[in-house]
């Protein structure tokens, strides 16, 4: 079939017009969104997130059982007194959290907790940074369901404004690592630090999905 040359010219003009209108619309849309006060700001993360809710929730099972073990949970109490022992009882002498999480006046953590574990059974474990989360960011583990804990860990208002990168780095924080060097007579978390870290990163990089319960 032969086409009418005038029709071809009309088609070319309409294509040009369509392209022009599209560019105009694009510029207008970009400009309009830039001036919208409530425009959502999407964060650009360099981490590759491969969303996979099944793998994510599965990885969180390991994360959850680790964080709820006494070596982690004892310093993330629901109240303002740390917990102690494998039964997570209230710390003897009831030392208080204080504003910075480092205790109060004559009862500061470092008054007893040295930079390293003090040798012997029932002696204070040690770390240079020994403290609870501060009063403004309590990061409670005690009593939380897996769903609640996952939501809390990802909530920047509750996690010390940590993004995925900072959360991943936190797995190697000195006090986190101290959980695997708890001092004489204290049980270790249920998995190794390497296994925990692998599960932690997997959970975060597959979308940090919260379990249903």
């Amino acid at each position: 079939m032969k086409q009418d040359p005038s029709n071809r010219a009309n088609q070319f003009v309409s294509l040009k017009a369509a392209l022009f209108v599209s560019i105009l619309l694009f510029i207008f849309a970009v400009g309009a969104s830039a001036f919208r006060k409530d425009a959502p700001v999407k964060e650009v993360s360099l981490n590759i997130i491969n969303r996979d809710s099944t793998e994510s929730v599965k990885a969180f099972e390991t994360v959850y059982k680790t964080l709820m073990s006494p070596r982690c949970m004892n310093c993330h109490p629901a109240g303002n007194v740390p917990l102690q022992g494998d039964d997570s009882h209230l710390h003897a002498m009831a030392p208080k959290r204080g504003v910075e999480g480092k205790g109060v006046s004559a009862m500061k953590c470092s008054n007893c907790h040295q930079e390293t574990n003090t040798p012997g059974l029932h002696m204070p474990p040690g770390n240079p940074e020994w403290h609870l989360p501060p009063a403004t960011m309590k990061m409670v583990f005690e009593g939380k369901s897996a769903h609640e804990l996952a939501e809390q860990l990802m909530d920047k208002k509750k996690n010390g404004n940590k993004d995925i990168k900072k959360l991943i780095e936190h797995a190697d924080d000195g006090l986190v690592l101290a959980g695997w060097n708890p001092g004489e007579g204290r049980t270790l978390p249920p998995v190794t630090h390497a296994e925990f870290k692998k599960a932690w990163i997997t959970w975060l990089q597959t979308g940090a999905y919260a379990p249903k319960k």
Partner: protein
Amino acid sequence: MAKITLNINKKEYPMEADPQMPLLWAIRDLAGLKGTKYGCGVAQCGACVVHLDGEAVRSCVTKVSRAAGKQVVTIEGLSETNSHPAQLAWQEIDVPQCGYCHSGQIMSAAVLLREKPDPTDQDIDDAMAGNICRCGTYLRIRKAIHLAADMQKKTTTKG
């Protein structure tokens, strides 16, 4: 063993000691200052409290190495003439019964009074919960701390 010099009550004490040794032994046995007491040895009772750069540390679990280069203050050095408000109040109220725990009690109270010059009962409980008294002088301790706070206020006002 290592050569270590401790500054205790503004005086230098050169000594040979294992850096891992509890500060309490250095204070009592090497410096000869017997006012600080050994109670439990596991940081549970507070009888051994001294000030390390102003903090109420338990000298039974504090290593000598941690104290090197810092200011250690024991009950003997809290004031030159036993005139710290806590010491005066302790005498006024006649707080001790057997007295064994009270150097530690007073050293803890001194930190509380510095950080909270007008402590409430709750502040006192929070600060002193780690100092055990088997004679049960807790009510007198609380009363003495309130009195010391009043004395301190008057001194500050006069000064």
